[in-house]
């Protein structure tokens, strides 16, 4: 496997054959709902729906999703805590509405992160990048990003293997050695990236690189039913949130 759990999940997801546009619709709809709707019950509902869709119909492994959700949690916790600690003339203390403010911030952030993850764990980046053309992102930029996507796995493998080789020869025993090894590792991966680019250029020349990196677009047809269900679901979620919040 590639070693990036979210990417592995995206390729294996039951939603992989769905049109990226459809998945962007439901995920971004949820992201905006998480941001705009009142935290109770809006964010809670968004979080539940995102997790439910990912683990249910999209069949993303719960372990992968759980681990991925944990990544931003440290930032969210420290950030929220910092916000509600008050620094005033009287020293440090809790803000008067600490619980509510922290709850709101954590709610929006966790729900939003879960909604982004729904997209990330069901849609490989390489499906998403061509869709950026509709946002008038130039083809050259999309091609650069696509090469980035392909090449990062090659370089990630190099990074891990070289680090393992360094570790075997005690490269990370002690702080000073660790820094020296990290510097050498970064330099090795950087020169490797240049070498890769040069060799890829040679490798592709025979198939006509001079006209750019055009390939046959993959057609993942949109589903009207899926889109209608997404819009209706998002509308219902909004309605419920607004009614309950009032």
């Amino acid at each position, binding site marked *: 496997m590639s070693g990036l759990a979210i990417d592995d999940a995206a390729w294996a997801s039951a939603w992989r054959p769905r049109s990226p546009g459809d998945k962007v619709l439901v995920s971004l709809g949820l992201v905006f709902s998480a941001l705009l709707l009142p935290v109770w019950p809006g964010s809670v509902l968004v979080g539940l729906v995102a997790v439910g869709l990912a683990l249910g119909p999209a069949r993303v492994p719960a372990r992968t999703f759980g681990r991925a959700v944990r990544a931003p949690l440290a930032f969210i916790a420290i950030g929220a805590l910092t916000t509600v600690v008050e620094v005033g003339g009287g020293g440090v203390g809790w803000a008067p509405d600490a619980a509510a403010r922290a709850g709101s911030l954590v709610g929006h952030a966790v729900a939003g992160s879960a909604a982004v993850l729904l997209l990330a764990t069901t849609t490989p980046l390489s499906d998403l990048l061509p869709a950026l053309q509709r946002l008038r992102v130039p083809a050259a930029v999309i091609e650069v990003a696509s090469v980035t996507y392909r090449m990062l796995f090659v370089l990630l493998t190099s990074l891990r293997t070289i680090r393992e080789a360094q570790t075997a020869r005690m490269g990370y025993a002690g702080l000073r050695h660790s820094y020296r090894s990290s510097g050498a590792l970064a330099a090795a991966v950087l020169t490797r990236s240049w070498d890769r680019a040069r060799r*890829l250029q040679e490798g592709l020349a*025979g*198939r006509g690189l001079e006209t750019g990196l*055009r390939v*046959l677009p993959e057609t993942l047809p949109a589903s009207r039913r899926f889109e209608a269900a997404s819009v209706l679901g998002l509308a219902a979620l909004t309605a419920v949130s607004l009614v309950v919040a009032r």
Partner: protein
Amino acid sequence: MSHLTLAGTGLVVGYDRSRPVLDGASLTVAPGRRLAVLGANGSGKTTLLRCLSGALAPARGRVTLDGAELRHTRAGLRAHRQAVQLVLQDPDDQLFSASVAQDVSFGPVNLELPEAEVRARVAEALDLLSVTHLAGRPTHQLSYGERKRVAIAGAVAMRPCVLLLDEPTAGLDPTAVGEALAALSRLQEADSTVVMSTHDVDLALRWADEVAVVVDGGVVQGRPDVVLGDDVLLARARLDRPWALTVGARLQALGLLPGGALPRDADALVAALPDSPGVRAC
């Protein structure tokens, strides 16, 4: 795909170094015949293939396709590449796309073919290399052997008359080597001429109709059993004599194998041995 004769004549490459990599190398790729290009690491095998493919312009000498000389102009190279394709040793040097099918489509799309034709060629190439089941898989999840076959499919989708492969079996286990050779046979049946470079003399003897040994900047071309039985040449080329020739020659001298061409692999040799000793000893 018509059959064309690809040839390099008096190729000189790397003249600014003290010793040129190729120094007057000549090679003829006869249509429909299996040619193995042999040589030690650094002998210039890859350089020779790159010259023949048009990827590298030799300092001197010429590359011809049915007598017509390759010109290193945009149009000249474009025409040449439609007839001759080179597959590099490391598949990661050729796979730039995350999706297998898209990577294979790169060449046909650049030929400005209509979409239906591109799809047909991709499907055909994936089928010839037996990798149709990988079409939807991301490149970075494939094994080394799978990536090698997909890289070959990318070249095959250009429907070349001559397919040049640099070490297509390097790093593959015996079963994967067998699968790769079977795929090359299918390509031949689909009317491509296949040339592979290797330093595995046993494989070359078994597979090739003809071998070309790259040595001291030149090329010695001929029948596998003759060229690979020439110990002086092999020593100069830093290659070993195939075991089948060593053992076969001895068994022939003992009268245990019939005269003429020696068996090329273990199974053929065992099959050619008499049922009991001394039968052919006369």
